[in-house]
């Protein structure tokens, strides 16, 4: 009986080790070239921060991780297809995502904001006869990352506000669309900041106030395949661990001038 119990325990340990042993993590890129060109500044700070956090989580889970940088739009399909175990968008909470995926505990909070060429906001504000905001925006072309919460919101209001949706694969591509194809890009504020905080983006500015409601802000999560509760629990425990011992804020402050939680 004791031997049987020991055997069951051993099998459980081996199975647990196998479950958390090899993990494939997808990190969302704001700029497609960042992976190939380490010197490229656009979006590189966030990617580096995601990378550090992902490696720390892996260390806490005692797992060997393969980290792959990929456009955000490719992460969720990759999770569903089993290409990745953990998706590091990170992704804003939405009921639809909660149905399709297993969402980790919140890793931080985020909002969305319009980005435009300098002066564009004043032009639109003058045209609209008041201040510019997501509510007052009319007759504009707005770029957003495909599959993002921003795109989802834009699709919902596009007809009513006479908005033309300009899809992009990445946040950097959405910014590029501002060169003639789009008037504004609606992006997560942190990603937008990371893209704009370079000399090359001096011509860009935030337009209108930030928005954290209507599915455009709130808690951001890591995404796992639905039903993978063991891994979800391990990820949540790892997040709690790096929060409680101060590792998480140290990593954030290493890459960004602000706190994200």
């Amino acid at each position, binding site marked *: 009986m004791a031997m049987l119990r020991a055997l069951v325990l051993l099998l459980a340990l081996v199975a647990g080790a196998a479950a958390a042993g090899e993990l494939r993590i997808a990190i969302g890129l704001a700029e497609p070239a960042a992976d190939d060109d380490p010197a490229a500044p656009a979006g590189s700070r966030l990617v580096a921060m995601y990378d550090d956090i992902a490696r720390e989580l892996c260390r806490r889970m005692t797992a060997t991780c393969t980290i792959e940088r990929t456009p955000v739009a490719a992460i969720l399909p990759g999770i569903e297809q089993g290409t990745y175990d953990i998706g590091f968008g990170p992704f804003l909470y939405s009921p639809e995502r909660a149905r399709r995926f297993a969402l980790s505990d919140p890793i931080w*909070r*985020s*909002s969305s*904001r319009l980005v435009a060429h300098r002066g564009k906001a004043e032009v639109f504000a003058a045209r609209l006869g008041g201040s510019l905001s997501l509510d007052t925006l009319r007759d504009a072309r707005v770029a957003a990352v495909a599959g993002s919460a921003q795109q989802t919101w834009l699709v919902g209001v596009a007809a009513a506000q006479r908005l033309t949706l300009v899809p992009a694969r990445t946040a950097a591509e959405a910014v590029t669309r501002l060169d003639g194809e789009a008037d504004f890009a609606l992006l997560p*504020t*942190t990603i937008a*900041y990371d893209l*704009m*905080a370079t*000399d090359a983006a*001096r011509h860009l*500015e*935030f337009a209108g*106030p*930030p*928005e*954290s*409601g209507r599915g455009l*802000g*709130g808690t951001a999560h890591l995404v796992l395949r639905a039903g993978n509760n063991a891994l979800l629990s391990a990820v949540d425990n790892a997040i709690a661990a790096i929060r409680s011992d101060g590792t998480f804020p140290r990593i954030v402050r290493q890459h960004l*001038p*602000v*706190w*994200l*939680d």
Partner: protein
Amino acid sequence: MPEHAPRRTASRAFAVLAITFLVIFAIVAALLGFEQYRVLSAAERLQAETVPEMIRYQRLARNLEQLRQEGERVFSAPNPEARRQALFVVMLVASHPSILDQPRAAEAARTAEDFLAETVRRAALDPDILARRQDEWRQHAQRISLLVDDLTVQGVNLATADLAEMTDAMRVARLKLLGALVLVGGFLVLMMFLLRQYLIAPLQRIDHALSTMDVERPAPGFPPAGLAEIHAVEEATRRLHASQVANEAARRELEMLANRDGLTGLINRRHFLTRAEAEIQRGERYGRPVAIALGDLDAFKALNDTYGHGAGDIVLRSFATLLSESVRQSDLVCRYGGEEFAFLFPETSVEQAHAFVERFRQNFAATPIRLPTGIDVKVTISIGLADASGRSVEVALQHADFALYEAKRLGRNRVEIAAG
């Protein structure tokens, strides 16, 4: 308790006490449980709601403070690029959901952001605008600082309310616990008192009564009992004593019937032999003299033949009465058979016994006995006396019988002493 007062059964009385105790204990436990629930609820609320809310306030205050510092950096930046970077951070912080979720903070951040964005834009054309707008910025900064202070205090106060409720609940719980302890202690003392008063003390009295019960002592008396069972046992104890007394009386009656002669009331021959044997052995053990005698009424057959057996019986009873009145308490006399009687004189030599029986013989011979017909008759007795010391009762009686035979032979109405 008065004798006529209604008594309760022990099971009912103790069931009432137990139920009362249980009810009181349940009430106290419920009261304590309520305070415990308050403490747990406050602790859970503190952990699940208040602390996260405090952290939220703390983060909000921290972000606002950062916004203010970055605003200061906009004015102190050495060049336009540094100013632009500072403004970016201001915008980033102002966009954080923690600020957007709080209306006052969102309004302050929005106003500050707009002011700083306007300042940076105008400073690109006119750098002197920074100095001119510095005072206005200080008002924004002060407003943000006051808001930071308010939020910090509000966050701390959140915990204060919960902790105050926990402290209050603990204080009340401590008082209730103390009250419960006093209540339980008092109840236990009351239980012990009642147990002693109504159970232990009566049982001890019953135990004492039973262990010291004797037919020679009066019936045990008990104070009125409060419990029916105790009263029943006390009554049973009294009945037991009464029964023992009755049994003893019956035993004595039976003993008397077994040991006495029915006509004369003197002890019978069997009992006489038993006691005589014991007296002779005692005398021998202590070296004391014992005398024995056999007496036989003279011409008793003729008396019967002349006056009838009824007259004979009267003579026998009269003789026995006179004999009983004449002998000492320690002497034994019995109806040995028919008109024959035996005597045993402990602590008495043959000479002393002879003096007594001679005096008695004379007294009896001189005493007339009235028969139912009104005739007075005088009867005499012949007595044979022997020394019983160092002999068995049978041998001693044999000697006395020889002496009696000698007395009869020598003419009756006389006492003869056995030789040797």
